[in-house]
């Protein structure tokens, strides 16, 4: 099993930390992982993306141009990455702020209204965990047990009190994910 994922959105949406939590959960579950951020001046106030690979085997390239899954959180990322999903792959996106919806017919597409839900239930900071929940519903790469361990490892000890809220946000994500176009 190898899952090659791109997570892309605006800087500040928690794109990188969501990837890190996923990667750390993978490590806890004894998988091979790779987390490669886009770095550079474009991150400051602009778009931000990270390539996360989780595998049972040694990982080849940490930089890719074709992905099994794209998690897309803004319009510039939709423009950039919709066509990078492998045929038969998965695209999950938050429709908030999306003006041009995806048009691919050869991939599975799901919507997750995470921004709307996060502000509705007053957990705006856990937006990224809601999105992660949506992804894990379709691709349960890591179990809840290892996700919790991944959170413990990737959050500083002073924030460990927030782990139950994070897990709850993941559950919310699993509930609100809805199909947009499936094969």
């Amino acid at each position: 099993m190898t899952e090659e994922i791109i997570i892309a959105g605006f800087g500040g949406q928690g794109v990188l930390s969501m990837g890190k939590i996923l990667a750390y959960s993978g490590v806890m579950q004894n998988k091979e992982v790779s987390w490669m951020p886009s770095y550079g001046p474009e991150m400051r106030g602009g778009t931000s993306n990270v390539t996360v690979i989780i595998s049972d085997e040694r990982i080849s390239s940490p930089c890719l141009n074709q992905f099994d899954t794209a998690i897309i959180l803004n319009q510039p990322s939709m423009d950039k990455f919709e066509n990078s999903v492998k045929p038969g792959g998965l695209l999950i996106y938050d429709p908030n702020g999306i003006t041009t919806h995806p048009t691919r017919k050869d991939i599975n597409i799901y919507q997750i209204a995470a921004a709307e839900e996060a502000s509705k239930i007053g957990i705006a900071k856990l937006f990224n965990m809601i999105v992660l929940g949506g992804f894990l519903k379709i691709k349960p790469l890591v179990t809840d047990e290892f996700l919790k361990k991944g959170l413990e490892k990737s959050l500083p000890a002073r924030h460990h009190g927030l782990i139950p809220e994070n897990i709850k946000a993941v559950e919310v994500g699993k509930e609100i994910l809805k199909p947009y176009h499936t094969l």
Partner: protein
Amino acid sequence: MKELKLMKGNEAIAEGAIRCGCDGYFGYPITPQSEILEHLMAEKPYEKTGMVVLQAESEVASINMVYGGAAVGKRVMTTSSSPGVSLMQEGLSYIAGAELPALVVNVVRGGPGLGTIQPSQADYFQSVKGGGHGDYRLITLAPASVQEMYDFVELGFDLAFKYRNPVMILSDGIIGQVMEKVEVGDYKPRWTDDYIVKTYPWAATGKPKSRNHNIITSLQLESDKQEKVNLRLQAKYKECEANEVRYETFQTEDAEYLLIAYGSSARICQKVLQLARKEGIKVGLIRPITLWPFPKQIIHDIGIKTKGILNVEMNAGQMIEDVKLAVECKVPVKHYGRFGGIVPTPSEILNALKNL
């Protein structure tokens, strides 16, 4: 006890230094390697192992602090990225001339000049063909994973002390920034002064009555003395070439074509291998781990049996010169590269392979 961590390549360099018992780090921040100094400062090794961590006023100061520390037999290092490493070349030549062990890490970014902060491999020539003046060599290690970033710090120090020669870890922005799983070891204690006196009799550790002065210098005013230094250096480099060549091969057994790449390019080429093999193209990969001494023999032996070689680097083609020498131009060798911080995609390398 072994411990698993998820770390950036840069953090792994810092962690490797602390845990292998490094005595001192002297550096100046520059993207894409600033996490090394940040991680060291956050870990406060001066409280754990007594390791010194110092942010110097410049790269020139850093390398000369390393020169000083190395002269007394301490395991000392500096790190930087391309423009900063250019500033260190004078010091590196002096350290090589004075035959001192030292570790330098270059997390390469696009150049020339201030260039860009994104990944590149354009400092190959600088590392393996000199960079500084005079007939000297840098033992150059090219890590391709975060684990190797960690492991090569201790290996680098071992080689530096074995040969009394500076060692370069030539990394790049990808391996510096990527996070991967790393197995870290226990904290090893730093060497005691007694151990250094006993094991490294050349070190300037203070003169007892029983021996003459230990003189650390790269200056010889008489040319016959300087020639002796050069002959000794060359003999040492020969020994190094005989003993320290390291490489990794992938699917070369039935290869009709061969990719040659190091560092992050070698990682991307492993993906190319998967894609090409799916299309029935019999291709293998050789990844030099030591860029100097260069694995010429294995490249020759495997290379001359193939129909063609594609050299892949994030530069205009630098290692390709060594590859051509290794196969004595008996088979066609072509180059594929991108510049200025652009990372080539597996598909574009595959296309270049098909057009060999």
